[in-house]
């Protein structure tokens, strides 16, 4: 990558960061609430990309980590009365253990074995939730967990900057909770994937024999990627169940479409980029929510969008995949390079001396 390229990436990054940090002052309160939920989807997508996008070991069942993280936190809070900070920690650890339990046997073998195992594991978990409805809430899920940060009274600073009700304050507080976690996860993954660890991950994706030939234990690195991915997914989900956004319900954390969604976001955003899936997760959430809530009617066929949104939504996703098989982010960065080279043919030599 040229230095100029890095420079322009940095500028885009800083603009996004400023935008996210000032979102509460730019967006309506309900949109801000949506964005909070969207950030969690971005975190889920990043966690998938860290293992599947980088090492090429496809996980089709990442919801197992979200489910284990979220349910562990919820149950420990409701039944044992542990505080959210402790239960989030416990949910995170539990997801990591699940990563080891599944990863140790599944990652020793090469090929699509992991994909198969991860496809089945969440199915088992969904059934377990249904077998113990008293403790795990069954299909309806668990509600009423303690909030990570109690916002019962309006907060002085927020009132001073124009947020009125306690509801608004709560939305703003949880937005920042989500944003901090999102940025922390992004930074963590960024540091690892840009280090030699990332170059081993992508080498595994390219050719495991080549990795073995340089004296690196590919299985160890795959297990690390998978477990760390699980830890982060579990952390995000455990935090999510202690926000006002969502309880611990199979539909949000466990069922197959949840897993498919993160795979889809990973592919759409650009596998092995972290940034692509993170950003695409956010956009994905908004497009889906907008379609879902739309009361527009499709002309000619006369069907309301809100009823057939899934057909529309997944068709759009398919079209994007056909058009941009490598994903949106790689396409964008190619595009910006092309545009720059056209505007400034001398870009290449200059970039070296900048």
């Amino acid at each position, binding site marked *: 990558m040229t230095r100029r390229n890095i420079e322009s990436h940095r500028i885009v990054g800083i603009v996004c960061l400023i935008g996210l940090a000032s979102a509460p002052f730019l967006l309506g309160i309900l949109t801000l609430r949506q964005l909070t939920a969207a950030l969690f989807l971005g975190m889920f997508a990043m966690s998938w990309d860290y293992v599947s996008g980088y090492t090429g070991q496809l996980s089709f069942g990442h919801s197992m980590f979200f489910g284990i993280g979220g349910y562990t936190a919820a149950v420990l809070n409701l039944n044992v009365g542990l505080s959210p900070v402790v239960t989030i920690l416990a949910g995170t650890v539990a997801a990591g253990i699940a990563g080891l339990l599944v990863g140790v046997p599944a990652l020793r073998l090469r090929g699509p074995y992991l994909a198969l195992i991860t496809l089945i594991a969440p199915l088992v978990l969904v059934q377990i939730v249904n077998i113990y409805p008293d403790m795990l809430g069954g299909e309806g899920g668990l509600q009423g967990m303690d909030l990570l940060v109690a916002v019962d009274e309006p907060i002085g600073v927020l009132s001073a900057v124009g947020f009125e009700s306690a509801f608004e304050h709560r939305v703003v507080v949880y937005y920042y909770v989500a944003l901090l976690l999102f940025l922390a996860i992004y930074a963590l993954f960024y540091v690892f994937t840009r*280090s*030699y660890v990332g*170059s*081993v991950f*992508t080498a595994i994706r390219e*050719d495991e024999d080549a990795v*073995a*030939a*340089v004296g690196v234990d590919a299985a160890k690195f795959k297990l690390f990627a998978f477990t760390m991915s699980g830890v982060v997914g579990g952390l995000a989900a455990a935090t999510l169940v202690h926000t006002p956004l969502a309880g611990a319900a199979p539909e949000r954390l466990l069922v197959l479409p949840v897993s498919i969604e993160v795979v889809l976001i990973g592919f759409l955003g650009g596998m092995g980029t972290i940034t692509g899936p993170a950003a695409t997760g956010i956009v994905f959430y908004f497009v889906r929510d907008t379609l879902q809530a739309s009361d527009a009617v499709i002309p000619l066929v006369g069907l309301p969008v809100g009823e057939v949104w899934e057909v529309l939504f997944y068709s759009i996703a398919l079209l994007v995949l056909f058009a941009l098989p490598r994903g949106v982010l790689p396409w964008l960065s190619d595009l910006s390079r092309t545009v720059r080279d056209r505007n400034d043919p001398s870009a290449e030599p200059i970039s070296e001396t900048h």
Partner: protein
Amino acid sequence: MSTHSTRSARDTAQSADILRLENVTKRFGSVTAIDDLSFTIRDGDIVGFIGPNGAGKSTTFDCVSGALAPTSGSVYYRGEDVTGRPQHALVRRGIARTYQTFRPLNDRTILENVALSQVPNSLFSLTDFRADTEERAREICERVGLEEYLSQTPDELPHAGLLRLEVGRALGTDPDLLLIDEPFAGLTSDEIDQTVKLFCSLREDGMTLVVIDHNMHGLLDLVDRVVVISFGEKIAQGTPEEIHNDPTVQEAYLGGEL
């Protein structure tokens, strides 16, 4: 060639075995790829490992390098039984190999391909991956003759370049024993000469080399000793001259060119 003087000098200096195979057998289902194979490689030698198509040469490399575990038999490296140890562990002990079908990483440059050989095998390491490892990777590329391709990707490389990349990546692991699978196939005679020179210079640095080929053409100037296998079994072992006059070997090649 001045290899003869160095050869005799080395003979008096040491004659320890670096590698020993004892009754190694490898079966794939009903196919016996190597059959009760035993031989030794002396430290510091360049050994030719020859045999016709499908004789089991690559499979033998697989068993020695740890890519495959032998069905039975033992592999000793510097006197230690290393049978069935994983490949990455053996690389750390000093056994490196190249692949007959090259294994470049097509997602990165030549320099980055070679730099992969410098990564630690631990998950958390504070060694600065950028600065000195890149320098080392550059040196290796120069050594194997890839200096003009550093920022190109493998798919832009000619065949001979890909071979150099294989060798370069193996050299990056600082091997004592280097197993090279059919390096001369598809090379022009100029390229073969350069490659032979490179291998000789590696031996001067104290490396032991085992070089696979179908026949002895390219190997005559290069090797100290030759091991010949056919249908998975060793049929001869000795100096190139001895092998040349061996009736069993001539029979195995059915009067074809040895």
